[in-house]
């Protein structure tokens, strides 16, 4: 199981579901549709637009600006990361304002109409800037709580599995990043895990729920390097297929954005770490050993480095 701080959180977890963020989303979406609408007008009726503003017919120029509007509109509506596209809209607004400022000096223009257009563009610019800013802030302020849930089927009774997991001292045997778990009292234990860059992460944990043969839940106590909690549930699988083991983990790295960047360099996706740990638990419980190839011969000078590299590369596929 991964107790390393600072893993970048999953995308799905990053969408805040409070009312404020919904408003922001709605505003962004509205601006997206506005972009597309304005773009269409610029492309379909450039001559009429020119007449309205009282400028010469810059057909091609209007159409190019229309395309730009549509591109940023589609970008805002279709991409998950809207922030960049919204800033692109802000850039477009500035170009529009500059263009309006330039034509305002010519003699043929209708000053009132230009003023109306400028006011409209300026208004939209304000909205664009606000929306883009808020979305950018939101991206930086996301908290880095990592939640992972994984399930595996093990061909042993839930009693056996509960008993084995319940003795926390067994956990480091199959949890790769865990170094040791020492019991303090019945309910409390001291955990030591490998952190990024060779650092150690320590905390005390207590059992919060313990239903024999069914469920064990635990969480870290105050003063933990990494605030975390977890649970494991054992359910008899249908058709005599053993036991379904579900693990849920969450942890909140304290180091914030910097920690996340560092961890990204050293670690892998927490989902995968948990899955591999569960695989090892299954191997241990079903076969009595955790199969390995480390230490076998090969016709190369250093087996482990290249081997690890392959494994890493392969796990980056998808």
């Amino acid at each position, binding site marked *: 199981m991964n107790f390393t701080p600072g893993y970048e959180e999953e995308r799905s977890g990053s969408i805040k579901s409070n009312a404020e963020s919904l408003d922001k989303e709605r505003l962004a979406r509205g601006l997206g549709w506005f972009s597309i609408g304005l773009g269409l007008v610029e492309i379909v009726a450039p001559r009429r637009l020119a007449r309205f503003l009282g400028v010469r017919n810059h057909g091609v120029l209007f159409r190019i600006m229309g395309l730009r509007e549509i591109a940023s509109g589609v970008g805002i509506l279709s991409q998950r990361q809207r922030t960049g596209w919204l800033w692109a809209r802000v850039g477009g607004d500035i170009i529009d304002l500059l263009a309006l400022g330039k034509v305002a000096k010519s003699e043929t223009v209708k000053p009132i109409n230009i003023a109306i257009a400028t006011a409209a563009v300026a208004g939209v610019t304000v909205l664009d800037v606000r929306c883009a800013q808020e979305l950018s802030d939101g991206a930086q302020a996301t908290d880095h709580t990592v939640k992972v849930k994984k399930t595996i*089927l093990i*061909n042993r009774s839930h009693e056996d599995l509960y008993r084995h997991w319940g003795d926390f001292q067994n956990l480091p045997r199959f949890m790769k990043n865990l170094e040791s778990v020492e019991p303090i009292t019945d309910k409390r234990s001291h955990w030591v895990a490998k952190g990024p860059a060779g650092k150690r992460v320590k905390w005390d944990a207590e059992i919060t729920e313990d239903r024999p043969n069914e469920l064990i839940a635990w969480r870290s106590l105050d003063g933990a390097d990494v605030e975390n909690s977890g649970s494991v549930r054992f359910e008899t699988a249908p058709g005599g*297929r*053993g036991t379904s083991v579900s693990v849920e983990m969450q942890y909140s790295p304290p180091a914030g954005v910097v920690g996340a960047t560092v961890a990204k360099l050293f670690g892998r996706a927490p989902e*995968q770490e948990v*899955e*591999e740990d569960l*695989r090892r638990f*299954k*191997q241990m419980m*079903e*076969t*009595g*050993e*955790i*199969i*390995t*190839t*480390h*230490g*076998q*011969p*090969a*016709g*190369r000078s250093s*087996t482990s480095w*290249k*081997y690890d590299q*392959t*494994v890493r590369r*392969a*796990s980056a*596929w*998808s």
Partner: protein
Amino acid sequence: MKANCWYGKRDVRVEDVAEPRILNRRDAIVKITTTAICGSDLHLYNGFVPTMQKGDILGHEFMGEVVEIGPDVRNLKQGDRVVVAFPISCGKCFFCQKELFSLCENSNPNPWMAQKLFGQSPAGLYGYTHMLGGFAGGQAEYARVPFADVGAIKIPNGLADDQVVFLSDIFPTGYMAAENCNIEPGDTVAVWGCGPVGQFAVRSALLLGAERVFGIDRFPERLRMAEDGGAEAINYEEADVYDILMEKTSGLGPDSCIDAVGLEAHVPGLIGAYDRVKQALMLESDRPHVFRQAVLACRKGGTVSVPGVYGGFDDKIPLGSLMNKGLTIKTGQTHVQHYMRPLLERIQNGEIDPSFVITHRMRLEDAAQGYEIFLNKTDDCVKVVLKPNETYPMTTKANRFSDDKVLSDRQSDHSAFSKGGATMAEEHEARQPYKCAVCGAKFDSQDQLQNHLKICTQKKSQ
């Protein structure tokens, strides 16, 4: 020790590497006496299967003597003579308990790699990519056998290496392919590919009660060997396979079709060029021509059995034919452990002698040459076995690939060969001086002969 290692496309070399040691409690170390090059090794040799690493030890068909066992292996002891199944299987998981050994859940240390490509990971295999475990293989002097208590079968005295080594893969593979056809008396079975697996599929189909078996290939020596096994030969370069199968089955199509070719089908004409181009551009991982042909030729409601290896995502599969004709597809890596014992009995009973398929016996050191002639089918090559602990080049057919010095050493050491150009049969005889008076079978030692005599006389008296 010496081991045959993979270094890239068409680049294998016998190198000095460390000897294997026990890494898990259910491991054993086997000193290899006979190992073989499999057709599926050629897919690695040609670089078609991803996740190989330079220096990986190849080989998944091997046998030898147990020299060391882990503390949890209770059914083997030092000195036992064993054949090792190519899938590594724990024997305890849901799949192993259903005897679906090649689907073992616990033997692949890198299951996530296979999961990405296949959805779920099958068993780990010896010397067959890191996606399938990255285990060191058996084209070596020694090999580590994980889960040895499940994967190694003891061989009684009285049987020569060459008779039993193929229990590791190709005999069970051909047999499972035929068994998957659910053959009923009077059935017709068509086998695409008369390589080693195809040869065993032909013979197994007949053992299981098929009335007619067609062997499809283009190499005369392979077609001849299939005919020797009881098949009717079809050369796909001389006639359209579909047309000829329809003609021979009065338009019904064969009851079962076996694709013993897999991902590197050689296809003449436009569709062949299409697959080759797509494969070269990495738009398609395999060349599934034989599978297409087998589906189209198979009789309605029949079975297409696929022992041939495929690796990825293939185009132009006739799903319409598959669905509308109500075909059954049966496939999978072989559940070797399930078949080893019954097939060993068939060998002991004299129902089949798998050594018929061997055309080349070579030293381990000559492995690279072995791959080359096996790939190019030069010198009428059908199957190469390697003898890691023999020091002289042994196969007459392979002699021309050995350097003169070694050849002359061999001639002075072994006067039996001194005439040069000796045939395989002569060599076999020279190596196995003990001959059974009842059936004529030959053996390496007096012991083996004695054991054989017991079985042989019993059989005769029945």
